[in-house]
């Protein structure tokens, strides 16, 4: 049996997992999957984080993808990083570059089993900053320059593909080549604040084909986090990778307050498996959660079973379907055969709202009219806080 078949039934421990260390963030990206901005007061303590690492070591989880929010704004970030790699847990962390000084870059280059992933969503400041905020492009470039100068080889540059940056694929590759880094492109999901901007930002049908063709031509050198297998039906060459949803089977998310979700794009009670603070810790959640047991059952293709593309697209992304109000046993909202068009027209007004929001500014209500709240309790101006978006 191929390994991917074993994966569908779940493993006794994740292979790797995403760990969002904090909801605090210095940026306020329009599409943030975790609706980050404000620290949650119930965040795991340093000691609790180390206990999680101890568990991951015992379970032989091979590595963690540390993100957030911006993980490096936690004062204990560097301590936790060292603790993880000192306890047989490899670390890749995702950052906007805010704390990647020349000194930190040298420290990282000298540390084994650590990988760094810089977030960038435009090959130019104009495109990038429209989504990530003024100055964020320069900050990311500075961090990458520092990493390259420090001799950090093959760090990652991770790009979320949007309507406004698909045309820049070659430029992204060129930026990665300039810094000796590896490009990673991933799919935008309608998760977190992504739900607000999905209609405006998700690639068009034509652009999906551009992405697919570009990956077929360049895919050996480019990572994707396996997030484009919903495009496999566009051609006969399957994209490199497992082409499988690993949520709750091979991977999962641990969030800043210890909640365990099937995947970082599914932060919602519907996909909440448990909390690591409960008796039995993370291991008990991974092995005995009802949600995960359900995900590890053979999945029916439902409405997709009769489609010839189902073998290659597997029905697409669970989170993308959920947050666009589509049934999980039907087509993906970006189904390349257009099978979701009718369902989307009907479901459009009944989408589940992300139920966890750590954004610093209130997000627009459904009609697109922003509702202003005071930036601080004593701030009388109704416009305070609006300019952060």
């Amino acid at each position: 049996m191929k390994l991917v078949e074993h994966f569908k039934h779940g493993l006794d421990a994740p292979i790797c997992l995403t760990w969002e260390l904090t909801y605090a963030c210095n940026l306020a990206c329009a599409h943030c999957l975790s609706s980050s901005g404000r620290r949650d007061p119930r965040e795991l303590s340093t000691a609790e984080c180390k206990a999680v690492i101890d568990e991951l070591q015992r379970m032989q989880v091979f590595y963690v993808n540390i993100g957030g929010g911006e993980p490096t704004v936690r004062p204990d970030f560097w301590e936790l990083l060292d603790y993880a790699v000192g306890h047989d847990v490899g670390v890749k962390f995702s950052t906007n570059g805010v704390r990647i000084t020349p000194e930190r870059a040298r420290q990282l280059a000298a540390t084994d089993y650590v990988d760094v992933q810089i977030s960038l969503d435009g090959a130019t400041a104009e495109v990038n900053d429209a989504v990530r905020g003024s100055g964020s492009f320069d900050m990311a470039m500075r961090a990458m320059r520092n990493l390259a100068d420090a001799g950090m080889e093959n760090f990652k540059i991770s790009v979320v593909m949007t309507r406004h940056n698909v045309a820049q694929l070659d430029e992204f590759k060129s930026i990665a080549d300039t810094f000796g880094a590896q490009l990673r492109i991933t799919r935008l999901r309608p998760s977190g604040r992504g739900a607000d901007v999905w209609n405006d930002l998700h690639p068009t049908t034509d652009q999906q084909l551009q992405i697919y063709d570009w990956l077929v031509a360049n895919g050996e050198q480019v990572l994707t986090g396996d997030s484009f297998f919903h495009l496999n039906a566009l051609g006969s060459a399957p994209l490199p990778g497992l082409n499988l949803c690993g949520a709750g089977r091979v991977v999962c998310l641990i969030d800043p307050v210890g909640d365990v979700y099937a995947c970082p794009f599914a932060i919602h009670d519907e996909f909440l498996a448990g909390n690591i603070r409960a008796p039995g810790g993370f291991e008990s959640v991974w092995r005995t959660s009802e949600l995960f047991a359900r995900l590890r059952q053979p999945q029916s293709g439902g409405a997709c079973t009769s489609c010839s593309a189902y073998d290659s697209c597997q029905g697409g992304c669970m989170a993308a379907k959920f947050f666009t109000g589509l049934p999980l046993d039907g087509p993906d909202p970006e189904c390349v055969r257009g099978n979701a068009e009718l369902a989307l027209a009907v479901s459009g007004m009944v989408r589940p709202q992300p139920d966890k929001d750590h954004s610093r500014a209130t997000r627009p209500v459904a009609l697109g009219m922003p509702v202003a709240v005071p930036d601080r309790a004593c701030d009388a101006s109704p416009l305070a806080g609006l300019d952060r978006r």
Partner: protein
Amino acid sequence: MDNDTTTQTVARGDESEVEADLLVEDVSIDGMCGVY
């Protein structure tokens, strides 16, 4: 990577006959949908 059938990068379903002979299967580590 050599041409030896014993170790091969994962490819899709049409390799199932050859796959039965494989003792080692390599897997793309970034190929885990659901991580950053």
